[in-house]
């Protein structure tokens, strides 16, 4: 994406050329060329990161559920990654994977691990002993117990972890624009040197709106997936 040398506030309206706080006409004119692609990229970044992060965390949590000594190393490593500032992690990965989407995704996946791993494991361990006893008494194998008892009971905690992971990934993905021009951080960083308010506010509001919408959708999914948790108002 080549940046124009001359500040380009678009053609036309007084609002845009005088850089008023918010110009709806600019948003309308640049929706399909600037904002919409950035929004789609942002969603892609988030879905891929949470998807891969979830697969890794689920595998690790299942392993830690069987082998207790796996828990601590995985938790400590993911906690260390979680603590590293995002901009620093991106820059540390650039020498290895370059100025690519891969760099961004590796970092974003890294940030989801701690949240997802802890929630999935906590969920798996939340099955009451008498329920597990009953499952064994009914003759369920270990695998059957996992799929029919432990995982369903873990669902509320898993979805709760997904909510936190999705919302924080959407927030973090804006920082990706320091590495590649992808996502809603792109328009924000592009508009900052010119202090073009409309673009900063529009892209920022989209990022916040996306996070709130995704969170709301997951709440709905949680209610549909685990009606029992709400029937007795437990959890």
């Amino acid at each position, binding site marked *: 994406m080549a940046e124009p040398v001359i500040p380009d506030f678009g053609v036309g309206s007084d609002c845009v050329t005088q850089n008023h706080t918010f110009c709806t006409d600019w948003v309308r004119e640049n929706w399909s060329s600037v904002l919409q692609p950035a929004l789609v990229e942002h969603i892609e970044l988030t879905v891929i990161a949470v998807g891969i992060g979830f697969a890794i965390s689920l595998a690790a949590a299942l392993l830690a559920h069987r082998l207790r000594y796996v828990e601590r190393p995985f938790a400590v490593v993911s906690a260390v990654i979680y603590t590293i*500032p995002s901009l620093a992690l991106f820059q540390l990965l650039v020498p290895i994977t370059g100025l690519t989407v891969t760099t961004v995704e590796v970092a974003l996946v890294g940030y989801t691990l*701690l949240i997802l791993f802890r929630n999935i494991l906590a969920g798996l361990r939340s099955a009451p002993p008498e329920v597990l006893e009953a499952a064994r008494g009914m003759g369920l194998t270990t695998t059957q117990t996992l799929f029919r008892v432990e995982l369903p009971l873990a669902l509320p905690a898993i979805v709760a972890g997904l909510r936190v992971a999705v*919302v924080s990934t959407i927030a973090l993905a804006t920082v990706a624009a320091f590495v590649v021009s992808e996502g809603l951080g792109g328009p924000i960083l592009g508009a900052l040197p010119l202090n073009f308010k409309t673009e900063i506010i529009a892209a*920022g509001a989209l990022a916040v709106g996306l996070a709130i919408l995704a*969170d709301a959708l997951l709440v709905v999914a949680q209610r549909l997936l685990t009606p029992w948790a709400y029937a007795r108002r437990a959890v």
Partner: protein
Amino acid sequence: MSVFIDSLQFIVDHRELILEKTWEHVVLSAAALGVSIAIALPLGVVLGHLHRGSFIAVNLANVGRALPTLVVIAFGITFLGIGFKSVLVALVVLGVPPILTNAYVAVDEVEPDAVEAARGMGMTPLQVLWRIELPLALPLLFAGIRTSAVFIVATATIAAIAGGSGLGEILVNQASYGVEGLVGAALCVSLLALAVDAALGGVQRALTPRGLKLQVPAFEPDVRPVV
């Protein structure tokens, strides 16, 4: 891998610059954390003591998480201009939610029996707060401060684009410092965040009464399952 060796060389060669920027980073973060604590801690404790405003106090953490740091900083630049004030406001906006939510939850969830017993012994509400609720709430309350501190240190890096001082200045300025400077600063800021987390984790463990210690694992960041 040579980039990483070069970056270590950069740190050694520019140790005065690195130390200076690290110090600026710490001062900026400490200022933001101080203001955040001053705002959020009394509010959270009082709300928790009164068991009021749970909706706001608990949801503030979710809202805080949904606010992208870059967006908050960009809005700061847009509305307050480039400079210290805008950076401080952005950092405080992001630093308040974890402290407030944890303080609220910590005080709100103190064993009702203990509070009841204290009241039965004739303690005034202030004594209950000071002698029962706060000591019992301290570990969780401090966990919020720790989360916020790490968050502020991380965000202060990005705040360099709004005229913030600190290691971020090197990190967003490849033109002046080259790749090895960027990577070197990234290493330093990562170590700083880990050090702050570890140090405050130590304080948190020291503050935890022995009876509660069994329940708090060593690596407990703020991500308690929020079912």
